[in-house]
């Protein structure tokens, strides 16, 4: 009997206090400037086009490609199944579920590496994980995956294997067969548009 009264006299006031104070929603695990600098220096955020291409070919369900360029550029050309989160919009709460999660493997890309890297730094500073940057950006992607340079016949097996992978990836992604740049762009610009619609349905579903 006494024990219950003692417990009540301590725990009820504590409960009242905790019910009255606002909830602490700050995230204490943000990176310090030094920690971020270390990560930038080691460059662990970069992922090579070959790795991404392999994930695309094997239809890795964890892969989520994120285009951080503006909507106009995204409409003209984008990688398959990519979603568009323009860099200026990256802090929009609408996208938070996409960039702050622990299931998908997000790959940011822009034309070069800069914009994607900036997007990554912002999300990393917020403490988000599983976000990566496509090394070399779209330009390097087109160069290596869409129009891979054929290795010399004297090249090592490894080189030839790499070339075959890239060629296969290019074909799977609707490029490669045509070598001229403009038609590659024209050819590849079609599927992303239809696929983006599919993505939108997913947005509604979630």
């Amino acid at each position, binding site marked *: *009997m006494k024990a*219950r009264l003692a*417990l*009540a006299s301590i*725990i*009820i006031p*504590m*409960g*009242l206090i*905790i*019910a*009255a*104070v*606002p*909830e*602490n929603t*700050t*995230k*204490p*695990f943000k990176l310090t400037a030094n920690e971020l600098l270390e990560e930038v220096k080691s460059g662990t955020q970069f992922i090579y086009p070959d790795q991404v291409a392999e994930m695309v070919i094997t239809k890795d369900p964890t892969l989520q490609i994120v285009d951080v360029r503006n909507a106009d550029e995204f409409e003209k050309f984008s990688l398959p199944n990519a979603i568009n989160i323009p860099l200026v919009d990256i802090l929009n709460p609408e996208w938070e579920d996409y960039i702050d999660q622990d299931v998908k493997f997000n790959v940011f890309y822009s034309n070069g590496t800069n914009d994607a890297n900036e997007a990554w730094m912002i999300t990393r500073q917020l403490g988000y994980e599983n976000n990566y940057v496509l090394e070399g950006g779209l330009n390097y992607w087109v160069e290596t995956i869409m129009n891979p340079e054929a290795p010399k016949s004297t090249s090592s097996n490894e080189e030839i294997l790499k070339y075959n992978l890239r060629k296969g990836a290019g074909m799977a992604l609707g490029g490669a067969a045509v070598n001229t740049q403009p038609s590659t762009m024209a050819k590849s610009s079609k599927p992303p548009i239809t696929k983006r619609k599919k993505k939108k349905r997913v947005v509604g579903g979630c």
Partner: protein
Amino acid sequence: MGPLIVYDIISDNANLFFAFLIGIGFGFVLEINGFSSSRRLAGMFYGYDTTVLKVFFTAAIVGAVGLLFMSLFNWIDLSSIYINPTFLWSTLGGGAIMGAGFILGGYCPGTSVCAASIGKLDALAFVGGIFIGIFIFTEGFPLWEEFYNAKYIGSPVLSEFLGSSRGVLTLLMILVALGMFWIGEWAEKRFARDDYKLNQK
């Protein structure tokens, strides 16, 4: 103030060591509260001994208040606390099976190990039953795999479901708990048994 223990800062082995110490502490608390007595545990179902309710409800509300205060002082990040995901049907099915086993055997899995460690033979039999259950479950897994993974509803939190803050819900739970203690002690008098004395050693 920083967090008490940052994930990944202590190694997996050190982590296991802490788990070992906490496990011993847990076992000790169970034993000191008489949880190695199957009569005391089964008393919960018949109403003549509600110690189980009191101990676990006290642990829950003290834990809840403690976590919220630690979060308030930035000692802990509540968003990085692991919440077991819920698969509704297997939760209900598993709960029913465990409840039935609890009434039949007089122990729950943790307390059976606790009682076996002080040499109770019925608890040893119960632990043996646990292993038989594990064997049947794993060997027959393909049969109930679908049921096991059905109705996944993520990690729902009661406060979000009710649309209240965590603090208000905690206060509510405290009041509910104290009310339950009162009812429990009433039940202990109402369903008292001649052959059972409360807090006997």
